[in-house]
């Protein structure tokens, strides 16, 4: 199997999974709720409106036709209309997504920058105080509820100490930079607005630190065990026997080989960060997918809830696809079969 066959196979598999995702969201939105329209409009809806919607959405048709309709609409990007914002769900999602992307990316970068070195050092110095400290950091990180940690940090660093700004993405009196990518950090740089950049960075710090700790904990844990495993392999001994500098042995022959499980965990961490965003965005008044979807739920905005689910599953599947492709790049055994 060569590289092209591998990539094609992975693409096919992703397509299959995405189709399955559609099946799941269809089941959740059309089959499981006894009365989908009731779920959408609420119990007090006038019967003629229910009847109208039922026909409009094809809910009077047999299930398999409904499914085909559903898939066709989803593929066209028609995820229905939100009753809360009265706009197409996809349009909402695209508006709210960049804030989540910015938060998740910043957290992931923090997670990698802290987690990989921490995991590596604690493996290389197994049993030392730094290893024990790292273990405490990791166990606390995976055990602390992010939504609670967010609240506590807000209380301490904003309300009590005043070191960091409170909720939101920018200081309230500041005009946001013109929206290009939706990522305020990037947009403010594009507009040459250093003040906005600085303010956005300060607002990002707390939520990113909360989610970053969670990410770093997971990444450090896997890095440690992966590095420990590679350290035992024989090729590391060969590398030392060649007289390579210890720094090169660690970077090239240990870390490089330990990278594959780390890349995988970075992929799953991304999923965890999307979850984390759902849990923390409300606290930090962060206008992202999480706040959108929790709001949608509380308003029983059914289309928006299912649309977000589908959207996040697609993003997550694409991240996993990317991980598999990086894998192929990193490991020649995958590349050449």
């Amino acid at each position, binding site marked *: 199997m060569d590289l092209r066959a591998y990539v094609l196979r992975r693409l096919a598999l992703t397509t299959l999974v995405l189709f399955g995702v559609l099946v799941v969201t269809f089941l959740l939105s059309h089959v499981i709720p006894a009365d989908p329209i009731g779920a959408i409009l609420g119990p007090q809806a006038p019967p003629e409106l229910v009847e109208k919607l039922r026909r409009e959405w094809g809910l009077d048709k047999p299930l398999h036709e409904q499914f085909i309709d559903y898939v066709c609409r989803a593929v066209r990007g028609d995820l229905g209309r939100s009753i809360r914002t009265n706009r197409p769900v996809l349009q909402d999602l695209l508006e709210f997504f960049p804030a989540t992307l910015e938060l998740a990316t910043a957290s992931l970068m923090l997670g990698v920058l802290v987690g990989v070195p921490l995991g590596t050092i604690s493996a290389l110095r*197994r049993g030392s105080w730094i290893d024990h400290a790292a273990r405490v950091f990791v166990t606390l990180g995976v055990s602390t509820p992010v939504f609670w940690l967010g609240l506590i940090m807000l209380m301490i660093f904003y309300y009590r100490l005043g070191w960091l700004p409170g909720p939101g993405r920018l200081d309230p009196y500041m005009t946001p930079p013109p929206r290009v990518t939706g990522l305020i950090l990037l947009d403010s740089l594009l507009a040459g607005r250093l003040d906005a950049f600085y303010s956005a960075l300060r607002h990002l710090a707390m939520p990113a630190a909360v989610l970053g700790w969670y990410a770093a904990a997971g990444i450090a844990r896997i890095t440690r065990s992966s590095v420990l495993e590679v350290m035992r392999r*024989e090729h590391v001994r060969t*590398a*030392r026997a060649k*007289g*390579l*500098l210890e720094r090169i042995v660690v970077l*090239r022959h240990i870390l490089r*080989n330990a990278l594959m499980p780390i890349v995988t965990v970075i992929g799953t961490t991304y999923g965890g960060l999307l979850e984390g965003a759902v849990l923390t965005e409300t606290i930090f008044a962060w206008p992202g997918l999480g706040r959108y979807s929790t709001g949608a739920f509380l308003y029983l905005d059914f289309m928006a809830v299912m649309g977000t689910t589908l959207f996040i599953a697609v993003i997550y599947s694409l991240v996993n696809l990317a991980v598999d492709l990086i894998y192929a790049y990193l490991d*020649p055994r995958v590349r050449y079969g």
Partner: protein
Amino acid sequence: MSSPLLEVRDLIVHFYTREGVVKALDGVMLSVGRGEIVSLVGETGSGKTVTALSIMRLLDHNARIVRGEVLFEGRNLLQLSEEEMRRIRGREISMIFQEPKSALNPVLTVGFQLREALEAHGEEGEAALEKVLSMLRRVGLPDPERLVNRYPHELSGGMAQRVMIAMALLMRPKLLIADEPTSALDVTVQAQILELIQSLVREMNTSVLFITHDLGVAAEISDRIAVMYAGVVVEQGNVYDVFEEPLHPYTRGLLAAIPRPGRELMAIEGEVPSLLNPPSGCRFHPRCPAVMEVCKRVKPRLVEVEPGRLVACHLYGGE
């Protein structure tokens, strides 16, 4: 034998494990002369590899060298700084291993790993590549220009071991430590690899410490032979002498355990002792057919009974 290239003196190594302290080496004595091929033979777990790794100072972190000297050209390697030792590895002493395919890094190309061995000692660029290619040719690998771009999993075991040999000899080291280099290979390939090692080291005047559990292989390749049992070198001598007239009861048992046509096969009674709690005195005494009272109490020293002929047994040279 005036000033050997390598001399290991009274080397004691312990491993600290969860079950307790494993006394892996208990005063190993060994020497390798210039241009000489010395075989270190013994059963699995007798401490051959630990000896080799101690010389290279590549033991795992849970190992401690308790005592002893490793003299290489008169310098005690155990007292060098880590950086001084690094300069010796690969340049003056290099090593090849039992499983050539796992001894190579699976994610780097063969060529990269070979050039790295040169870069470690300051040789870079076009000249280094040339050197790699010519070395690959010398170890009998066809089409080296293509080979350098391949990955270890694409090679057969024999090819991988040839690559390892090329890597080990790139810097023309004075000593090559070969740790069971043929044990994992097919018999036909085994013979080729042995022949290759033999001819290359003669050409380069490189000494070899050849580790094997296979007496046949040892007889074929070496000038001298050292027999290890439970962390101790029990006998050392010219390969011809040792095979013709083994002195130590363990060596005799070992030789009797080689199947030969027309002779009854003899097994050594008992089991290899646990090194967590090794026998007192001579470590072989519980299994020795010629055991005496003194063997249980006093550890025999390795003494020279004839020029170049050493044995550690109370039957000889009784103090």
